[in-house]
């Protein structure tokens, strides 16, 4: 049925809330992680292919653009993991009160940002970038 009426929930008049913003980030990180999956597949394929293909992959991954991609995938992974666990609790019927939803939302943000920063720091240290 092709109707021209506006579709709910009328995004143009809603004030963004923590819950709705975190919800759309969950979707965006999910879509972005599909691209991350392609990158992971490229890594595995390069290793199966041989040293030359692997060198080409690491050259790309080591470039500033590759590092930027990696950090964005890492954040998306942590966020989607944490918020996904939040979703699983909701699926079990827990944590639906407004206070609880806001508290778990802030926790997801804090943990995913903290874990991304911590992992990047530890990986950089392992690579000897920070020395």
């Amino acid at each position: 049925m092709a109707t021209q009426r506006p579709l709910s929930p009328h995004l143009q008049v809603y004030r963004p809330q923590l819950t709705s913003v975190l919800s759309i980030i969950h979707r965006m990180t999910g879509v972005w992680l599909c691209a991350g999956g392609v990158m992971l597949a490229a890594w595995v394929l390069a290793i199966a292919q041989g040293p030359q293909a692997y060198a080409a992959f690491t050259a790309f991954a080591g470039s500033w653009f590759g590092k930027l991609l990696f950090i964005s995938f890492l954040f998306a992974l942590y966020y989607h993991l944490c918020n996904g666990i939040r979703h699983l609790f909701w699926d079990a019927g827990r944590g639906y009160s407004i206070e609880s939803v806001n508290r778990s939302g802030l926790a997801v943000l804090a943990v995913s940002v903290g874990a991304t920063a911590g992992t990047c720091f530890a990986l950089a240290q392992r690579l000897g970038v920070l020395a």
Partner: protein
Amino acid sequence: MSANLRTPLSRAVGLGSAKEGVAHWWHQRVSAIALAPLTIWFIWVLFQTIGQDYATVREYLRQPWTATLMISYLVCLFYHGRLGLQVVIEDYVHQRGIETTLQILVKFAAFLIGAASVIAMLRIAVGG
């Protein structure tokens, strides 16, 4: 107006459901539950392999448990991703032709990339 004067409800009652109403939802949850620990493990793999030379990384990945978990991770990842992209397309693409095309492309791409990466892992695990 339909020639059939029975209500849609009376035509459906008693035929039983296809029992597939929540299948997609369940598959998404079950693959998510599998992916949660696998993701933690994958972060650990990153720490073991980053900056290492080719031979070391290949030797690392060809260990039986590492190869098993990596293949499990790849399968769950591309399956979960395909289920998620399907819902995103259903929700935001409203032109029937484009929607159907995208849905088919996503299914093909997920299977193809998933199959390619699993076969690559098998080559690493059992190849010379």
